[in-house]
């Protein structure tokens, strides 16, 4: 390679020098391209934002209504300082995008977070052909293999129906943005009413506003018939499932939906009654097929298990490296937004 890399790691985040913009920077910058509205990717304090049109509602709610935000449709491209920038579906959450950057005949794609499994609440992942692919690797170990989500939804529905028959509430902890809506789309609402925590509700509204069909949900304050509590499935963030807010759901069976539930140790450590393996990140086979599909000859790994994935890809004949995040070697141990 004669010229410098199109995207490099700076203290602020991933940086494209030719276009003078950052992708998902973690320190304030003048121009930020945001892959999706999860908190660790979309931070406050940037002068200008660029994101997918369906991220707008959530970005404005989470960061501020008055941020300087420009939006793009998937596939629509703009020029930033003569660098071509376009967004492409990442299948992670509503409005999640991969960032395609083209300059002087070179194409780089930064994946952000992505999954290849289907999700009724967002546009499916689309591989984009590129020279260099910057991939996430949250679940970059061969022990992470997701089952069809239809099987997981069936398990959740069965569990819910059993709890209802035993006259106890069903409380399912999950991340409010993305996971909660995906679960809602898979629930069999003939079983009983669905109650959502106050942290989940605004995100549901954003999804509905974006045209995603979700079943009817209530806040607990809107429940008029007390008998509904024991028939209900309650969706809440993990922090709420252990808070005083949860006390009103006496004897609830408590579950947690996350990719980390794949490991028995994690299931047992969390103290949940049930662990459901459901992730909005790509599993090991998903990562492999996505990387393959980009036809990239060079891959840069971020976001967990970098060393493992880098070595594996190198052994598969690719040029592979990694961008160290500020979280360091053990970032994979923390939960981050990795759901």
């Amino acid at each position, binding site marked *: 390679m004669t010229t410098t890399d199109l995207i490099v790691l700076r203290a602020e985040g991933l940086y494209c020098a030719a276009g003078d913009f950052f992708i998902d920077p973690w320190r304030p910058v003048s121009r930020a391209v945001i892959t999706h509205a999860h908190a660790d990717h979309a931070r406050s304090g940037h002068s200008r934002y660029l994101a997918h049109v369906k991220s707008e509602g959530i970005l404005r709610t989470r960061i501020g209504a008055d941020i300087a935000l420009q939006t793009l449709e998937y596939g629509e491209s703009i020029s930033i300082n003569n660098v071509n920038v376009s967004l492409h579906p990442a299948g992670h959450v509503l409005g999640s995008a991969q960032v395609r950057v083209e300059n002087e005949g070179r194409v780089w794609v930064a994946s952000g977070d992505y999954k290849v499994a289907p999700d009724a609440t967002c546009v499916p992942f689309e591989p984009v052909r590129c020279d260099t692919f910057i991939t996430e690797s949250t679940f970059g170990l061969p022990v992470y293999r997701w089952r069809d989500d239809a099987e997981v939804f069936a398990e959740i529905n069965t569990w819910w129906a059993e709890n209802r028959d035993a006259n106890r509430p069903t409380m399912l902890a999950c991340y409010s943005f993305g996971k909660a809506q995906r679960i809602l789309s898979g629930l069999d609402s003939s079983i009983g009413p669905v109650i959502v925590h106050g942290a989940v509700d605004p995100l549901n509204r954003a999804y509905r506003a974006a045209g995603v069909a979700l079943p009817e949900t209530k806040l607990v304050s809107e429940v008029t018939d007390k008998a509904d509590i024991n028939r209900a499935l309650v969706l809440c963030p993990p922090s709420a499932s252990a808070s005083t807010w949860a006390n009103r759901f006496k004897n609830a069976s408590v579950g947690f939906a996350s990719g980390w539930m794949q490991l028995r140790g994690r299931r047992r450590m969390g103290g949940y*009654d049930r662990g459901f393996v459901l992730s909005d990140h790509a*599993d090991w086979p998903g990562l492999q097929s996505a*990387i393959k599909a980009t036809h990239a000859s060079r891959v840069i790994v971020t976001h967990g298990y970098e060393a493992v994935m880098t070595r594996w890809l190198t052994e598969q004949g690719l040029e592979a490296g990694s961008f160290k995040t500020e979280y360091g070697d053990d970032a994979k141990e923390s939960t981050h937004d990795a759901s």
Partner: protein
Amino acid sequence: MKRFSLLFQELDRSTATLDKVAALKRYYADASPADAAWATYFLAGGKPRQVVKTAELRVLAREVAQIPEWLFEEAYQAVGDLAETIALVLPTHSDAGSLSLAERVRERVLADQVPAEDCANRDTLSPTLPPGGREQQVRIDAGLAEWIEQRLLPLKSLDETERAKLIRSYWNELDTTGRFLLTKLIGGGFRVGVSKLLVQRSLAEHAGVDPKRIAERMMGFTDGTRSPTANEFLRIIRAENSSTTNANSESENGASIDASREPNEALSEPTEVNGQPYPFFLAHQIPFALAAFDEKLGPPSDWIVEWKYDGIRAQIVKRSDRVFIWSRGEELMTDRFPEIVEQANALPNGMVLDGEILVWKEGAAQPAPFALLQQRIGRKTLTKKVLADAPVVFMAYDVLENEQRDLRQFVQRERRVILEKLLSQFATKYLLSPNIAGQAWQDLETLRSESRVRGVEGFMLKHRDAAYGTGRTKADGTWWKWKIDPMTIDCVLIYAQAGHGRRASLYTDYTFAVWSRAPRDAAEAQQVIDNIADGKPVPEGAMTDVLQLVPFAKAYSGLTDEEFKRVDAIIRKNTINKFGPVRSVKPSLVFELGFEGINESTRHKSGIAVRFPRMLRIRDDKPIHEANSLSDLRSMLLGENIA
């Protein structure tokens, strides 16, 4: 297998005893007696001989998953359990789904960007499904007994290629939980969070039988040398005959023990029933200090005081001219101790003794260290030499059955009288555990300090008026262990390995070393440490001349979670090298290590092996050069106290 798999999942995820019992009862209601027999066997702690070596399973799993060894090891490090790692790395049927989805997506999206031949190019990055993966969607669900007896146990006698072929097809047939269980069962490491007591309670509720009766009938059921059968299971849960009242009350009128305990025993094979031992009564560590003995225990005269021997706890059952030797783990060990069998010839039928098997050489004043007994147990064949080098004796301390009567409701002093009479009346070489007399607890304390020299572990205290209880229950009185304090040594952490399960992300398994001789000063010790950190080899020369750190023990328990976290951080910062899962660590931490015994060992570089080592505390106050040396350990071998 599916039903057992469901039971396992239910037990694994619940923490409430009631839920576990309910899950077990649901299982017993569904399962065939043959399946239930095996499930009970495993849940109650039965361990069949390992069918396939775990190393073989690892290699096979890597082949099926098409991943290199290092990647498998990375996965194992993250998961912390081998069987689970294997179950998870194997390709799943949904992999095909996610792959084909990616393919589909790619074909759609890339149709206008990518030449068509590229799309046809299957993934080489991802492992493909094993052959037959999709066709196996309709799976025939064999029961647990069929899995074990028809499929797993026969694996052992096959050659490796045949075995590999079958294991592959079994894995392919099962879902992730099924694979996990299968791998645990053939690798011989099955464990789930239920106690034997809980299994017995569930069976009792399922069958409507007294749990104590179930416990009695289950004695020997988990013996690893044989397979549980449907008939045995049916015998365990058989309704109690209404004419049979409590065994003890009948024993008063001299009713035959066999008739009173098991009225329908003709149903099952006589050898199994006849040889059954009683549930062992287990001792508890005494939880208070000497000063509180008078208040808590009363005077020593209320107690039968015996030495606590460091051997193998055993029951000798003699009935119908046959002898059975049972371990506390309910393993039948009769074949291991021909001397003890032979010495039982002189004893009458209908008799069960409780005591300790010890290696005790002719003319020796005290029993040989436990290590010698352990060595003998490890021998596959008992040659003349083995028998001569490690002759065993049976040290009797209780009698549970005499003249075919169950004596367990007799109090300790009554049983003691019967035992003494029995051993003197019949000419046997069995030894009688002596009663130790002492006016005051303080006198006994003085005697107790001789324990190490006498080759024992302290005292056992048994209340004179207590019956023989069951397991760890205290309802019938208590046996107290009044053990000597552990020996301690200050040593240096030099290697670390990640723990398993809950602690898989922390370095919690440590190897400790002592100095080969006492360092002259801090500077000399520091030089050795610097050499280690720089990877310089140890200079040639005898260990007593050339100062070095000599590994002598491994330990992984005794610290709090907080302490483990702290040590983990220090280990990560001071890592010199990684060898697979092991890190060599620049010596910087001194630990006080406690252990129960010490022996010479030719297998260890230090020439010494310690028993039950555990960390007592981190000695932040102790400079490294003041850690103990090999000669300190050696003096402990001779029974000296270095403190």
